[in-house]
């Protein structure tokens, strides 16, 4: 900041315009605060520890996935398959654990096995998406629309149209991963928090995060700057797959089951959270903390609607839609013409 200014530089004042408080930064936070205030005003239980824990814990699945999605979108990609991928991985994990139960018995090893299976499946699913996109050069929208259909079908097929349920005993053993916690904070919240913090650091301060933004901003420039474009882009999909696996690890102990309706529309919710948070859908700029705020906004809307009887439940979707649009309007810099 103490660069000797070139002799011809106009005015020193000019050197701080980025420090100005910007609506793109304040906007999402403001939206979140307004929502929280609304919630507290409508229902005194809103701010109770129990309710806050509920909301945060249930945000964790979409939240963890949305952090990964932030990288994918920042690098100019998109993934529509995460919801059904989650359902498929959950189904697979349950099947693996049930199958191993007779030989391994209930205990930590079988839980670790299940977790390993979920992470591995996530990794492979992300790799598959990523390879089709980077190696074959097919539009990400199409690849992941395809895999969305495929995973959703596969889980229906695995479950024979019904529900795959974790063995009851196993589930009781595994449940604390969702319901338990440390220092009074439940595990999903802890994991979500860690993922978010790590994600923010990676996005902001690592070479990888920079490369993602560069690729999303201008792929050609990235290529000419010796960035391994295909590899970085592939890595974003793999990372997202892994995070889907991680989300599933938190999800399965909650109800111990997976079915064709698991993870329905998670992809839209995750993408919406990313964009509400201020990441550019076209790529080139992403921020993980914004995504976290976006996820919380989306969760809060549902929570508040459940806590009040102001509107007909038929209109919940309309309120949600309105708030999503408003949250984004809030962060405009007052300029128009997208």
């Amino acid at each position: 900041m103490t660069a000797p200014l070139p002799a011809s530089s106009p005015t020193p004042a000019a050197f701080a315009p980025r420090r100005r408080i910007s609506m793109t930064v304040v906007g999402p936070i403001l939206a979140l605060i307004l929502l929280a205030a609304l919630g507290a005003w409508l229902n005194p239980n809103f701010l109770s520890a129990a309710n806050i824990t509920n909301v945060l814990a249930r945000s964790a699945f979409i939240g963890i996935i949305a952090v990964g999605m932030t990288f994918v979108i920042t690098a100019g990609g998109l993934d529509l398959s995460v919801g059904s991928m989650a359902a498929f991985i959950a189904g697979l994990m349950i099947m693996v654990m049930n199958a191993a139960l007779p030989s391994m018995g209930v205990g930590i090893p079988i839980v670790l096995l299940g977790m390993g299976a979920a992470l591995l499946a996530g990794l492979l699913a992300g790799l598959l998406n990523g390879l089709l996109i980077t190696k074959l050069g097919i539009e990400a929208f199409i690849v992941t629309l395809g895999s969305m259909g495929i995973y959703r079908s596969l889980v229906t097929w695995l479950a024979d149209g019904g529900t795959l349920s974790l063995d009851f005993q196993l589930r009781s053993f595994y449940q604390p991963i969702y319901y338990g916690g440390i220092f009074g904070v439940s595990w999903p919240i802890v994991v979500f928090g860690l993922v978010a913090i790590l994600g923010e650091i990676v996005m902001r301060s690592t070479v990888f995060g920079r490369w993602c933004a560069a690729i999303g901003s201008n792929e050609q420039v990235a290529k000419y700057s010796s960035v391994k474009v295909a590899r970085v882009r592939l890595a974003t999909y793999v990372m997202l797959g892994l995070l889907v696996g991680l989300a599933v690890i938190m999800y399965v102990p909650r109800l111990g089951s997976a079915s064709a309706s698991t993870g329905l529309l998670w992809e839209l919710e995750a993408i919406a959270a990313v964009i509400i948070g201020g990441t550019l859908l076209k790529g080139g700029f992403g921020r993980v903390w914004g995504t976290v705020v976006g996820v919380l906004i989306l969760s809060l809307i549902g929570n508040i609607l459940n806590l009040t009887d102001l509107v007909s439940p038929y209109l919940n979707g309309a309120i949600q839609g309105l708030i999503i649009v408003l949250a984004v309007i809030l962060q405009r810099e007052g300029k128009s013409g997208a």
Partner: protein
Amino acid sequence: ETKTVGVSIPAATHGWAGGMNYFAQEAVKRLEATYPDLDFVLATASDPAKQVNDIEDMVATRNISALVVLPFESEPLTGPVKAVADAGVWVTVVDRGLSVEGIEDLYVAGDNPGFGRVAGEFMAKSLPEGGKIVVLRGIPTTIDNERVEGFQAALEGSGVEILAMEHGNWNRDKAFEVTQDFLSKYPQIDAVWASDDDMSVGALAAIEAAGRKDVKFVLGGAGMKEMIARTRDGDAMIPANVTYPPAMIATAIEVTALGLVSSAPVSGRFVIGSVLVTPENAAQYYYPDSPF
């Protein structure tokens, strides 16, 4: 000469539908083995328009002699199914009636208002005057409306108060979250009506996690086997269930097949009533092989 039976049902997007899909496939498998000169076409649809497509395709390309249809929704299917019936194809309608009477040759019906009524009566009977309940509704559809109306009618005058109703979309996760929020909102809830057992799973998990002792029971519905088993085993949280057997599709397919291969009279109306499952009779509603 082989005859073809078309079976058109909604896709397995939630537990009950999954069970129904399972029974339909089982019935088709069994009947194909039993009657060598019968051929079956099974199509599952994710929305009413797709279901109409399926039926059109069966008529145009598979030359069906009979159609067994469980309408996704009554209204949109009425016209197309009527066209099929007018073309001389045997029509069996399952579960949801068409909006014009007299189209179908055979009607195997579930009883949605009855489903709600039985549940309501159980609530009225099991709860004291002033008891407070919350309701998890299904996906917004006519079926859900009929069930809820039946339920409310049965509660009338009982003094049991419905604190709130919210859509749980026949989905475990949604029911879990809605129940959590109900529990935050209301300090005293005596019972939960989850109008489907998939939702009971979510509701039970939420109640258990919250450690709330005020909720005395969850009344589900449609007889998921795990829930029936718990009722049978005397679990106080699940004292009863209300049937709405997904296996009714199998009944319909079998009767239709029978009508095609024999001269036995099979046309008419079968109403498969919703009955209350209690610890006493639970064993007879337990189907261990069903996915639901």
